């Protein structure tokens, strides 16, 4: 390259300015606010330094720990099920030779929905008096009383996870299907000649080959796990009685409804670290899987 050394930095300058002013600066502000008892209704409190008291109170707050634990469990269940179901769907569709392109288009359908729409859609479907699910169960004679999908705590959590899986399984299925299509045929044929059964072929050839694709999907998903906020916001908004409260819904309630911005920002930091840890973990896995495949750049 014959360009002066400054060129790449000049090219990156606009992007860096945007991120610095709209992401980094706000993060510094929220970092500061998390050490104050800033209350929206009393602007002067923005400069009221109280040290680690917000974090200390969070550590002793059972509502926070419930929301935090529920968020971790929610992410873990959702990502694992999405991965397994996506893999299953990709393997099934891969077996179909006729109309595969159409199937792939149908699979993209949930990806077009914004999370708020997914939330609305399942709020409607799981509605106890007019929802599709209860109506179907009624008319099939399976239930006599409506099931309160979004009113009972356990069922509400089930409904939310169902909606989340509906929204995101496609991403896994589509990426893994792309992986299956790129799968080289020679090693599989060789393995079959050597007497491997289908399970062994899958376990020792197909699956290792697919792992980078799994990690790409995981990385992309972990970037925006917080999308679940939109969905939960419209479906239950953390209710009934906080039984579906995730760290994101608790944060907005604390910040905007209760005006305790300092405390909300402390929670915000916990959620940011959570997201970064998840993304970083899968990104590292992705890099090492790529190296293992010998395809590293």
């Amino acid at each position: 390259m014959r360009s002066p050394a400054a060129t790449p930095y000049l090219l990156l300058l606009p992007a860096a300015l945007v991120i610095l002013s709209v992401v980094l600066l706000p993060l510094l502000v929220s970092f500061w606010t998390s050490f104050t008892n800033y209350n929206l209704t009393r602007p002067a409190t923005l400069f009221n330094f109280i040290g680690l008291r917000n974090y200390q109170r969070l550590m002793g707050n059972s509502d926070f720990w419930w929301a935090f634990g529920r968020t971790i469990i929610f992410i873990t269940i959702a990502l694992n099920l999405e991965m397994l179901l996506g893999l299953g769907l990709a393997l099934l569709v891969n077996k179909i030779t006729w109309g595969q392109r159409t199937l792939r288009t149908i699979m993209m359908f949930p990806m077009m929905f914004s999370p708020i729409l997914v939330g609305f859609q399942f709020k409607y479907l799981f509605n106890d008096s007019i929802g599709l699910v209860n109506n179907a169960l009624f008319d099939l004679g399976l239930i006599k009383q409506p099931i309160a999908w979004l009113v009972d705590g356990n069922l509400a959590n089930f409904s939310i996870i169902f909606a989340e899986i509906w929204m995101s399984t496609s991403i896994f299925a589509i990426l893994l299907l792309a992986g299956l299509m790129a799968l080289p045929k020679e090693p599989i044929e060789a393995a079959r000649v050597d007497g491997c059964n289908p399970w062994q072929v899958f376990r020792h050839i197909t699956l290792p080959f697919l792992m980078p694709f799994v990690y790409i999907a995981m990385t992309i998903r972990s970037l925006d796990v917080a999308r679940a906020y939109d969905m939960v916001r419209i479906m239950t908004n953390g209710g009934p009685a906080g039984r579906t409260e995730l760290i994101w819904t608790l944060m907005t309630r604390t910040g905007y409804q209760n005006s305790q911005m300092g405390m909300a920002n402390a929670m915000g930091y916990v959620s940011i670290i959570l997201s970064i840890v998840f993304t970083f973990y899968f990104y590292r896995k992705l890099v090492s899987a790529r190296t293992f495949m010998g395809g590293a750049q």
Partner: protein
Amino acid sequence: MSRLTIEKPWQRWLIRFGVFVAMAILTIPGLWVVVTAFRPNIEVLARPAVWIPQNPTLDNFARLFGLSSEQQGLPVAQYFINSLVISVTSTLVAVAIGMAGGYAFARFRFPGKGGLFLAFMLSRTVPGVALSLPLFIIWARIGLIDTSMGLILVYLAVNVPFTIWLTDGFFRQIPVDLSEAAQIDGCTRWQAFWKVEFPLARSGLASAAIFAFLTSWNEYALASQLTRTTASKTMPVGLMDFTAQFTVDWTGMSAMAVLIIIPALVLTFVVQKHLIAGLTFGGVK
């Protein structure tokens, strides 16, 4: 994949059945909302349930735009315009800025490259909800709350990192020799970019633009806190106008959902092929 495993007929039918069930689960919820958008409210609330629409109607859509006499319309047309202006503007600027950044990462070696790339990607991991709190404080102080400009700036920051990631991949796929040949033939590097590399990367850039547009079009968490009135409220935020404390206007909401989904549907079909390529090759190869 060629048939390495010979399936028995019953296995083949089992696979077809499995695929059919999966596709039904993926499509029926959305289609049900679309059907609801064209039904009168009375039919949706009926007991026992009415499955086949008896009186298809456009009334719900008319209601959204204030064309119906029975009920006051919501400012949905204004929300639609806001969404469009905000999404298109932030997309165009994000692609211009992101393209420059992606090109820098794809074509130059410079100190701090790896760290910078990681920093951009990490900025994308910050959840919108968490970012909305400090942005709310700052935007309130500098008067950007409830303005299109405020939301455009935010979406710019949301879209730039992903655009960089995608365009970096697209530019990498174009052989360096092409622009070097153009430069030997007397082009400056700037000319070589616009005459050789840009046209080759154009379809990739288009899909990066569509990604950015959809992200802005669908975003709710930030928009719901940073907008207040018709001056800047977007479609996803407007959707919540239909829910009161105890009642929900199901048909009106469904009609609005259809309006939100149509642009997304069209664009996703257009970008389908690039979508998969764009998502995978950042990681593999």
